[in-house]
């Protein structure tokens, strides 16, 4: 089409002109086109950049109930005896993992700052050695950052021999900075088949 136009307008274009009007506009179009390609590349990079941004945001804000995957230091804050917090525990096993998995107690009532230990039980009911990984999630998400785990079976993978049963401790405290309107939290663990590394 553009070539057709060139032929067509040959008569009206000065023979010795360095660039015809048509060619100039073609160049201009190409240049703007390539600039827009950079915008596309930028958006694509932005999509992949969203992955780390999302993870950082979730860890900071507790969106989706994500918690830190590393151990917290023991509480130095004073125990706040003036308020009570109930922490409930739930557990689930994802498809593909032949385990039984449950907390020994359904909930615990404690003061912020007070360190507690809760036992979770896992049993391999298959006839082969299986490696699992527990993934925690906390509701409400707004309190997720305030639940500090000093020791947790979720920090590392757990390997169970056929029929083996293991009692796994979770040592944690609730930071006194927990927003005052939160009086109940639910800590949920899902055991996944560990991914191959």
């Amino acid at each position, binding site marked *: *089409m553009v070539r057709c136009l060139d032929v*067509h307008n040959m008569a009206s274009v000065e023979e010795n002109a360095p660039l015809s009007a048509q060619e100039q506009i073609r160049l201009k*179009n190409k240049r703007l086109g390539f600039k*827009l390609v950079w915008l*596309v590349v930028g*958006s*694509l990079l932005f999509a992949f950049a*969203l992955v780390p941004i999302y993870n950082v945001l979730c860890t900071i804000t507790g969106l*989706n109930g994500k918690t830190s995957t590393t151990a917290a230091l023991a509480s130095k804050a004073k125990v706040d005896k003036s308020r009570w917090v109930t922490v409930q525990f739930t557990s689930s096993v994802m498809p593909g993992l032949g385990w039984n998995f449950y907390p020994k107690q359904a909930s615990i009532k404690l003061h912020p700052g007070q360190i507690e230990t809760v036992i979770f039980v896992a049993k391999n009911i298959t006839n082969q050695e299986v490696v699992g990984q527990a993934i925690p999630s906390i509701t409400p*998400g707004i309190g997720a950052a305030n639940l500090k785990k000093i020791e947790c079976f979720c920090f590392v993978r757990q390997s169970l021999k056929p029929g083996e049963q293991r009692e796994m401790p979770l040592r944690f405290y609730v930071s006194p900075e927990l927003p005052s309107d939160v009086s109940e939290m639910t800590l949920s663990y899902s055991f996944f088949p560990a991914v191959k590394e």
Partner: protein
Amino acid sequence: MSTTTVAHHEEHHDHPTGIMRWLTTTNHKDIGTMYLTFSLVMFLVGGSMILGIRAELFKPGLQLMNPEFFNQLIGVHALIMIFAALMPAATGFANWMIPLQIGAPDMALPRLNNWGFWLLPPSAILLTLPFTLALFGIGDGALATGWTFYPPLSVQGGIGVDFAIFAVHLLGISSVMGSINIIVTLFNMRAPGMTLMKMPMFAWGWLITAFLLVATIPVLAGAVTMLLTDRHFGTHFFDAAGGGDPIMFQHLFWFFGHPEVYILLLPVWGFIPQILETFSRKPMYGYKAQVYSLWAIGALSVVVWAHHFFTAGMPVPALLYFMYSTMAISLPLAVLFFCWIRTMWNGSMSFETPMLFAVGWIILFGIGGLTGLVLADVAADAQYHNSYFVVAHFHYTLFAGGIMGIMAGVYYWLPKMTGYMYNEKLGKLHFWLTAISFNLTFIPQFFLGLAGMPRRIPDYALQFAEFNMISSIAAFVLGFSQLLFVYNIVMCARGGKKATGQVWEGARGLEWTLPSPPPYHSFTEQPIIK
């Protein structure tokens, strides 16, 4: 706007004929015609898929298909309607009309334009091929996750998911190329004297659409690429056991998915005011207000995505933010509605088929918008989420607001494109059949949703039987009335009453200064706008 010269040249250039003409063409009208034809064909394909769904839902229990096939039909129906019917129709209009409306000889990047179109047929094949492969025992059919690809289901799904991922890649590349072309055309190729604020509204709608596409389609491409590597290359973007997060996919998907809604609607918001002013015989009301509202909606559309998954779990401040920002979109949209109605106010209106579709569109799209406000309410959404209320809502916005708008455009510009008038009686019959059967299909679905019927399930409880039966019968009427539309278009392309250059008495704008059909090369000398 006034035009000083209308140049057209009837000399023949040696362009190839037959199939090679269409394969190698860089002419904006040829490419526009191909886009529109492709869109019409895929509209019928996607429509027949959903008739399969409605046939299954005619009665409670499983009669015609197994649930896996049901799920596949639903997902592919949506992908086809969105990416292969609605988007190509809008791009087809852009190709045909934007150069004519802004007085340009052609699109700015004609070869890119050809490439952009020819990526579409392969992607349509990729989407539908798994159905055929399954008949020969290869794979287990098309993607069965719904069009949203949510993991972990999409990570576990069969080869249909891979086919759909590659189809989305191709469709995305195609529409990004189309968008770049449109932006460059609008910035560089306008007739002398046509400032941005003198551009036709359709050009404005498309300019914003094109920017939204360029900014968000790559995010979808990135998200489905992560899905692909999760499926086959051992990454764990969306796998919680590997440190990923399936909810993150929802954020990525809807970061594209919500602007996509406006990508489908903004071109329609562009040309509907032009139809309204034509048949009201007075200039459109509030041109500037409309342009600014389009920009406001375009900008808001990229910051409200999480209202699609309120129930996935979010902190209360996030819920509130997404609720209020979503509701804020209704403000510029209300300005648009006001301008559309005010354009008709005191006009000497006549109701040819395009106007019937445009007026019906305002009412039906209004219902779509208002029910969207209900869904944006976090408290109410907890009940309506994933119910048939949502299905009815987005069909009011995308079938009435999208496809019926496109139909208004088809009837409006068809005489310009073909040079012949379509059959007005058939056109009106098509409108009334479409409007009535559409309402009868989807109003019952609002009630079903309120009563708690979940979507994407092939069976339902007995108390939903009557409404589903009404909905199914109406859906079949709706589907088969579209054959009238096809017949009317085909007959109009083949001949009939000659159309004048202006076609409609009250038509304004540069495209109506050309003869109908416009010559193969129009505006080789650009008109001057004063």
